[in-house]
């Protein structure tokens, strides 16, 4: 399919280009926007793979929620990023060296890659047949049955993250008056308002 091939190359090249821009853009807000672009195109690649559920979740969760908060924070930061980058050239050779070593190691590992016999069969053993079940159903069947334990565990990890964020940042400031709506609604006019007849000229 030539159309799919074109779509793939478009999505893939934009993803890579956007990813490069994320780390090279001068303005941090631009970086985040490029990150969003990269996510978006990655979702496009998922669609091409036939994993439309993952594609949509990627957009809803990462682009629609996580990156928004990220952008939110970055926009409000008042950091001179040019200053932060000053040591960049100084450390560049070391960074390049480490990167090169890792790259060579990867090349050695991947270059002679062997996969044990019937690894694919083992990996796909639990999956429902692709041609019979839509991939949304298939994901549900895996996550909520075989991987129930991991699903619940991930929930606990998120709970801890939430508690942690609150513990480390929440401060109850003294002297703040908060609106208590239930108190307001529970007020009885009879107890709070007194209606008196005022004689003209005398006052209360």
């Amino acid at each position, binding site marked *: 399919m030539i159309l799919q091939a074109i779509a793939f190359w478009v999505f893939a090249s934009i993803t890579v280009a956007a990813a490069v821009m994320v780390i090279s853009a001068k303005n941090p807000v631009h970086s985040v926007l490029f990150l969003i672009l990269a996510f978006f195109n990655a979702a496009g690649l998922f669609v091409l793979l036939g994993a439309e559920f993952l594609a949509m979740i990627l957009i809803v969760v990462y682009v629609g929620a996580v990156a928004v908060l990220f952008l939110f924070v970055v926009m409000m930061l008042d950091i001179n990023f040019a200053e932060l980058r000053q040591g960049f050239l100084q450390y560049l050779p070391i960074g390049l060296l480490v990167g090169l070593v890792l790259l060579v*190691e990867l090349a*050695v*590992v*991947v270059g*002679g*890659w*062997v*996969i*044990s*016999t*019937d*690894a*694919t*069969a*083992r*990996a796909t053993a*639990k999956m*429902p047949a692709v041609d019979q*079940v839509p991939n949304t*159903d298939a994901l549900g*069947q895996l996550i909520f*049955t*075989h*991987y*129930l*334990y*991991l699903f*619940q*565990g*991930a929930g*606990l*990890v998120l*709970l*801890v*993250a939430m*508690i*942690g964020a*609150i*513990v*480390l940042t929440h401060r109850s400031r003294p002297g703040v008056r908060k609106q208590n709506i239930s108190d307001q609604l529970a007020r009885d006019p009879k107890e709070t308002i007194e209606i008196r007849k005022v004689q003209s000229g005398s006052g209360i």
Partner: protein
Amino acid sequence: MPVAAFPDLIPAIPEIYLAVSAMILLMLGVYSTGKQTVRTVSYLSTAALFFAIPLTVMVTDGRMVTFGGLFVTDSFAVYAKILVLVSAGAAIVMAQDYLERQDIARFEFPVLVVLASLGMLMMISANDLMSLYLGLELQSLALYVIASFQRDSIRSAEAGLKYFVLGALASGILLYGMSLIYGFAGTTNFDSLAEVFKAVNGTEPHLGVIVGIVFIIAGLAFKVSAVPFHMWTPDVYEGAPTPVTALFAVAPKIAAMALFARVLVGPFGDLAGEWQQIIIFISIASMALGAFAAINQNNIKRLMAYSSIGHMGYALIGLAAAGSAVSAEVRAAGIQGLLIYLAIYMFMNIGTFACILLMRRQGRMLEGIDDLAGLSKSNPVMAMVLAVFMFSMAGIPPLAGFFGKFYIFAAAIEADLFALAIIGVLASVVAAFYYLRIIKVMYFDSSEEEFDRPVSRDMKSILVITGVVVILFFIYPDPVLNGAELATSALFPQ
């Protein structure tokens, strides 16, 4: 629609129970507004942790695997879980006074400790690389938070941040290793992995697999703070609030060490030839660094950090012996030595940190070794107890620490790892220097002022229990020895 059967929940009851009680305690803390809330939550958390011990023992009946092979419980898991639960419970008890005095007593602390222990139990019971990772993350995330629990102190915040950044890096390395293993084998389940590697046994294992194992070992070595992945330890130990340090020094180490043993002996058991030399190397490096770097320390928490690095080095000797090709008995002896060592290490460390928590003058916490000067005159009981722990850490017979090292070195010699055993003995001689220096400061230097009194009942009981265990271990060592033997048998099915 074919749906998998509902998993058997019984083997995981302790974990489910802890998760539910953590959530209930959280609710209790959030919704009750009384002044005693923090204390109540704290006591209930300790109770919850201790109650999980009989639960763990009761539900385990031989080897039980559930959740589609993701979760396993056996006598090995029970042994390690008991150690973890005891040390986490003790950490909460020790923390209560300290947190109140530092004005950071909040009910989230015990809840986070319970959640961290849950993560440790999940690590110990992992039977799959994915559940391993999830337990590890649950544990680490909770620990990162409590490391910076004293959030107004820059040191504590730095400790949390440093731990977090380096921990995230280690997790990344671990995950990378796992993905290499998965790429080779097509499975993450320990049992299936063991089968796969049994099948390739004899031939030279593939480079990708070796790199994967190396990365997994690196990730786990970070969690047990073995050299060369120890850099975070001194700073985090020093910066974190002292009871948190006490927890760090014991519970996560035990959990990670148990996990280390399960992963290396289980799925990678047939590749022992590949990983044994790595373990030997990090063991020697840890022992050496623990011995030499601690000599110049003046802060007792930093000293304990290096001491724990050294102790992890000794414990890893057991693991190295477990990779021996001599015989199954020798391998079992290595694991058994490791387990005994961990139990003794736990008691010694809890006791020592209880003493450190009592170093307080006019309400101010002290951390310098010099501050201990003249303790033998101002508080002879505490000086004696601390001296016992220090002698034990140095491995002086007949205290418990000696037996820990004895079983480890014996296993190493059986496994023909003579050099390792000799280096271990030499390292403990060097390490004895700084343990004995503390005793010298306490008994022979002149006193400045007394430490604050009175000592709370909780602290007293912890000191008495740990002290008695350490001193009298040689009279009745059977519970630990038999427990370790039973636990080891689970890893080496006949």
